[in-house]
């Protein structure tokens, strides 16, 4: 059905990238659409104790739900992602953020699995967040939006699945912030999750991770255009948001990766300018990343989501061990780290595997060699694909045995 729509897209798009992307579209999901659903009409009690509602959720699904409803994989996105994980939206020049991983014959094989991807609470891609209109005032929430947590995001996802008639996940998968949601799922809804795939992620942010988030937030809030979060009638804190994103991108790369990608190469010049114009390639890259982010992301959402990440702590502020957090959680875990990731270092991912094992649980841990830093979780998909495919195969097989026994 979706692949038929693909030809429609071809007529719609007259982009010069058209010929290059033809092949990609042919082996992918083709045209997809984002749906929106009211998840909570009445206020939801958030982890902070604040009641908040209504909540709408943007989501996409790929593949076919099996009659037993036992082939569902929930995909959780990272900080700047959205529900559009795979396939092509009408008129788009790029596919979804994880199109290399989701589709027929890919790691999350949509010929076998029913993949659900939704935008998190507090984001700006369709799910209710600070840029959404507050029905009480008719204006965007801005900073009157409540501070949300990863547990709140997961609670909203659980409600979405309930509305879709799904009460059980074969797997919940995500990288970075998405991985933190996946781990949270295992702790919050242990009976609903058969397996967890956490990539380049952690059970709680370290001081260093909080520190980088704080610098990003301060960059936004120090911009006078932020105006205490009430900027929706203006251009908003463009400079602050761009600087916040530049900081982010530094932490997503690695020293060796930057050396390989940019080195000390100059941008469009042979000699130093001896001024503060653009000299180095790496400066150009960061400025470009900052500027392009401004057009596609809401500054307040960045504040809320980074705060949610900093609050996330499966050990509840150290009042319980990670092992205790995963106690009674029957899910099998696949945990993947990358050697040059210094934002979500391998030791954090490994600590999760160890905690699961101390509970007699099943955890596979793999540290993939890569120079891409934290970005590796998206870029090294060819290395991850066979691991994820085999893990899902094992989890599905174990599930069929359970079915056979209970039947």
């Amino acid at each position: 059905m979706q692949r038929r729509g693909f030809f429609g897209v071809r007529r719609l798009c007259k982009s010069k990238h058209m010929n290059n992307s033809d092949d990609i579209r042919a082996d992918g999901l083709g045209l997809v659409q984002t749906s929106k659903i009211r998840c909570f009409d009445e206020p939801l009690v958030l982890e902070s104790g604040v009641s908040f509602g209504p909540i709408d959720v943007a989501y996409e699904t790929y593949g076919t739900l099996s009659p037993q409803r036992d082939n569902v994989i929930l995909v959780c996105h990272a900080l700047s992602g959205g529900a559009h994980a795979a396939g092509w939206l009408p008129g788009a020049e790029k596919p979804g953020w994880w199109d290399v991983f989701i589709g027929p014959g890919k790691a999350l094989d949509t010929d076998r699995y029913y993949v659900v991807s939704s935008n998190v609470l507090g984001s700006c891609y369709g799910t209710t967040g600070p840029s959404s209109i507050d029905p009480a005032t008719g204006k965007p929430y801005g900073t009157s939006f409540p501070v949300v947590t990863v547990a709140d995001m997961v609670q909203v996802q659980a409600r979405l699945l309930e509305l879709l008639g799904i009460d059980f996940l074969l797997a919940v998968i995500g990288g970075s912030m998405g991985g933190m949601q996946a781990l949270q799922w295992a702790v919050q809804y242990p009976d609903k999750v058969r397996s967890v795939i956490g990539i380049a992620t952690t059970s709680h942010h370290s001081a260093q991770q909080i520190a980088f988030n704080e610098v990003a937030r301060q960059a936004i809030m120090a911009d006078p255009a932020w105006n205490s979060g009430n900027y929706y009638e203006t251009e908003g804190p463009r400079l602050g948001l761009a600087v916040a994103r530049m900081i982010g991108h530094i932490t997503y790369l690695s020293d060796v990766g930057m050396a390989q990608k940019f080195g000390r190469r100059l941008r469009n010049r042979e000699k130093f300018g001896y001024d503060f114009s653009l000299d180095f390639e790496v400066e150009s890259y960061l400025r470009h990343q900052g500027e392009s982010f401004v057009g596609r992301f809401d500054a307040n959402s960045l504040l809320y989501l980074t705060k949610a990440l900093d609050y996330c702590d499966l050990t509840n502020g150290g009042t319980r061990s990670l092992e205790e957090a995963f106690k009674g959680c029957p899910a099998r875990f696949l945990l993947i780290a990358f050697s040059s990731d210094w934002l979500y270092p391998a030791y954090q991912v490994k600590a999760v595997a160890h905690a699961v094992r101390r509970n007699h649980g099943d955890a596979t841990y793999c540290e993939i060699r890569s120079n891409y830093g934290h970005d590796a979780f998206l870029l090294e998909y060819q290395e991850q694909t066979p691991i994820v495919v085999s893990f899902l195969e094992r989890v599905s097989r174990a599930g069929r045995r359970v079915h056979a026994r209970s039947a």
Partner: protein
Amino acid sequence: MPDQLENRSAIYEWILKRTASRGRVLDVGCGDGELLSRLAEHRGVEATGIELSQECVIRAVQRGLSVHHGNAEEGLCNYPDGAFDLVILSLAVQELEHPRNVLRECLRVGRRVLVVFPAFGHWRARWQLAFLGRSPVTPSFPHAWHDSPNRHYLTVKDWEQFCNDEGWKVLEKGFLTGGSTFRLLPNLRAEVALYLLET
């Protein structure tokens, strides 16, 4: 270990006979998971491995195994006491940095431990060292001195002394040469020794 081809299936048979059905088995240094996946197939065991090489880890995961990517010490220390019915250390003890620590950990996390090692007391090794004055290169020790992964060169006698000093109970032992088992003069004739231990 391609040079252990002759003894390989005999090692496997020996291990298979001592693996209970449906138990939990950990293979320390599981390589690409061939041994574990065969045990899973023939004995229905719940198979877990620890392996240092990324390529091997990926292949082992592709065989449907649960694997920890890392070294033996780090991999073992987070398993609870008695988490496994059997821990296998096959042709790995001679490469470990701290074999004593690893073996103690194996005996902590496993009810029983099965150790397989290449025996250095074999007459061929003795001959090469004593009469040819060369570092031995044999089917069990196929590498030249400069590119061997081995850190330790132990004989059957060394091992028995070690088990004795540590107070480990040897439940069973086996010796292989040229792919078959034998009993007479193991320290001189064994290419590979196999021990089933308990604390």
